[in-house]
């Protein structure tokens, strides 16, 4: 990141303003309903956390730069400034008080994509040098080392060796022409090795060729979260280069919400061209393999369980039905949370909030929303499909003394996988 300055910050905000943003600011009549959809407002009761207020600096830039009236106002000295003070004041609202969950965008009566604008305004805040330390260092590590948590290839290789020794499953590395290239999130390498084992078993059973790239195994894109498109582009390019060099047909985004948004939706726009491969979330792939009859499951989880929709997978990714089809296949007592699917409440740690230590307190406050959803249900297990949600949920549950295990859906499916040679008597 080159030398940050307020001037640069304002220019970056200006550069983000397009016709949609102008239509949003032209349409907002300050009804305040977005606040009611935002867990950072509902749980704190602080009016400053109103989503549309979080993009106020962008509204000012828009008014002053792109409207005749705003230009006139500035000329006579009536324009509101966007200066150092404003950047300092709004920094915590823009980063700590928003998980980019997108719930506000879905309730706005005039149709404003507020969370999309918060994503955009972060470009200006990071350019102005007003991004949180935790996200800056995560992004630096992602660019320099290859992973936001500083995970290097030897760590991945070690995990692969353990897995092969323990299970006899093979994990192909850099296999030319494989059908699938599997990405991992740092958290899956560090905290949830079950994921890789699940993939290896499922792919073997489905008879699909797959590989992990030694140069692009990491899916997490903190460049997207902090709002530095240049760096986000570097991280995406790494995956694109590897996937196209290996000639894979499909890149599989792991159980990580923002990784999916980054590689599936933002990626082609960051690198300026469409990919030569497809991108699918692991849940989409599992659903396809199941529907095609390539994998079958047996036995049922009998524990009462529910599914937490990761925002970037459901509300912003459109993957709502696949996890439910999969869950109903392996769980006999699956119940929905209140407001499931596209309107689900965020875990409180998305959009870089969990990587931002300064936000720890407000994150735990916002978690109360998820807690009350879970309190209503009294489930024994919580299933999700995002490693970041999973960690945030585990932390939140622990902080509240709630003893509910959090499980990834992929590994739950793998546990019930019918494997050749080990097939038990059909449960049906």
């Amino acid at each position: 990141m080159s030398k940050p300055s307020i001037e640069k910050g304002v220019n970056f905000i200006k550069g983000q303003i397009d016709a949609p943003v102008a239509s949003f600011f032209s349409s907002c009549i300050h009804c305040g309903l977005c606040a009611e959809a935002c867990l950072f407002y509902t749980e704190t009761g602080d009016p400053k956390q109103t989503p549309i207020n979080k993009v106020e600096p962008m509204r000012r830039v828009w008014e002053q730069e792109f409207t005749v009236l705003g230009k006139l106002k500035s000329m006579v000295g009536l324009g509101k400034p966007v200066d150092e003070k404003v950047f300092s004041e709004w920094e915590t609202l823009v980063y700590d008080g928003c998980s980019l969950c997108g719930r506000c965008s879905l309730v706005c009566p005039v149709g404003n994509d507020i969370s999309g604008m918060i994503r955009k305004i972060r470009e200006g805040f990071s350019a102005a040098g007003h991004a949180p330390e935790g996200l800056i260092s995560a992004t630096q590590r992602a660019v320099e080392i290859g992973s936001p948590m500083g995970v290097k290839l030897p760590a991945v290789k070690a995990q692969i060796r353990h897995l092969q020794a323990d299970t006899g499953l093979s994990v192909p590395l850099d296999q030319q022409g494989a059908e699938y290239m599997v990405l991992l999130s740092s958290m899956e390498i560090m905290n949830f090795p079950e994921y890789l084992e699940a993939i290896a078993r499922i792919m073997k059973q489905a008879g699909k060729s797959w590989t992990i790239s030694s140069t692009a195994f990491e899916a997490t894109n903190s460049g997207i979260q902090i709002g530095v498109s240049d760096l986000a582009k570097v991280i995406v390019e790494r995956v694109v280069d590897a996937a196209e060099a290996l000639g894979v047909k499909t890149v599989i985004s792991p159980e990580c919400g923002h990784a999916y948004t980054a590689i599936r939706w933002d990626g082609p726009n960051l690198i300026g061209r469409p990919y030569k491969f497809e991108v699918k979330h692991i849940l989409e792939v599992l659903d396809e393999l199941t529907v095609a009859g390539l994998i079958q499951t047996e036995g049922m989880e009998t524990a009462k369980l529910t599914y937490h929709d990761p925002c970037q997978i459901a509300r912003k990714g459109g993957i709502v039905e696949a996890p439910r089809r999969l869950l109903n296949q392996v769980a006999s007592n699956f119940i929905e949370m209140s407001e499931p699917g596209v309107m689900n409440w965020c875990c409180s740690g998305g959009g870089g909030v969990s990587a931002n230590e300064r936000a720890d307190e407000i994150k735990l406050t916002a978690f109360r929303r998820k807690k009350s959803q879970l309190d209503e249900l009294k489930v024994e297990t919580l299933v999700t499909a995002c490693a970041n949600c999973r960690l945030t949920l585990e932390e939140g549950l622990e902080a509240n003394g709630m003893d509910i295990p959090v499980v990834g859906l992929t590994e739950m499916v793998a546990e019930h996988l019918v494997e050749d040679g080990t097939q038990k008597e059909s449960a049906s």
Partner: protein
Amino acid sequence: MELNELLIWARGPAFNIALAIFVFGMLLRLFEILSLGRKEDLSAARGSGVAGGLRTILSRSLPRQTLFSREPLRIINGYLLHIGLFVVIFLYRPHIELFERLFGVSWMGLPTGVVDAVTAVTILSLFVALLIRIYNPVLRFISTPGDYLIWLVTLLPLVSGYMAYNHLLLGYTLMLTLHILSVELLLIVAPFTKLTHMFSFVLARWYQGYLAGRRGVES
């Protein structure tokens, strides 16, 4: 005699000027928005952006259940205000006659007694909106002088029209003149305030719906 002249001026030249400012102002605002353009989305679409955009233009007229259960009063009041304004502006017979003179098209109106009652409800809903704006901590915090200005310029034509029709307070001619002048104030102010949302909401809904539609997300 002087009052008649004022009425003639208000109905004639003044109205034409106000209407011209409204039309050109709104076109300018729409140009300000559209001329910014947007980059082509290069990601592979899962669904249709156009279908999503069109769907959201309609679907966003209904509140999400989660929101309605939290804020029923604010939402019902919003419907009353907007439906009321529609009825009062477009279904009052003397207004329809005006539109016929202006655009040459005409349609069925509602009995004036009904419109009179709707006007009263609409005025009430505006006062409820003001109370919510003042007493709700979020609204009080985010509201700007512009929000109170558009409240006032929306209220004036309703109140003056209601009082003219019911012969309250001032003579009919004077009240009618004030009514017309207040409408002209509204027309002049609208393009330069958040009243632009009367047109731009279609664009906003379209843009978000388009994005969601491409991603195969319900919006």
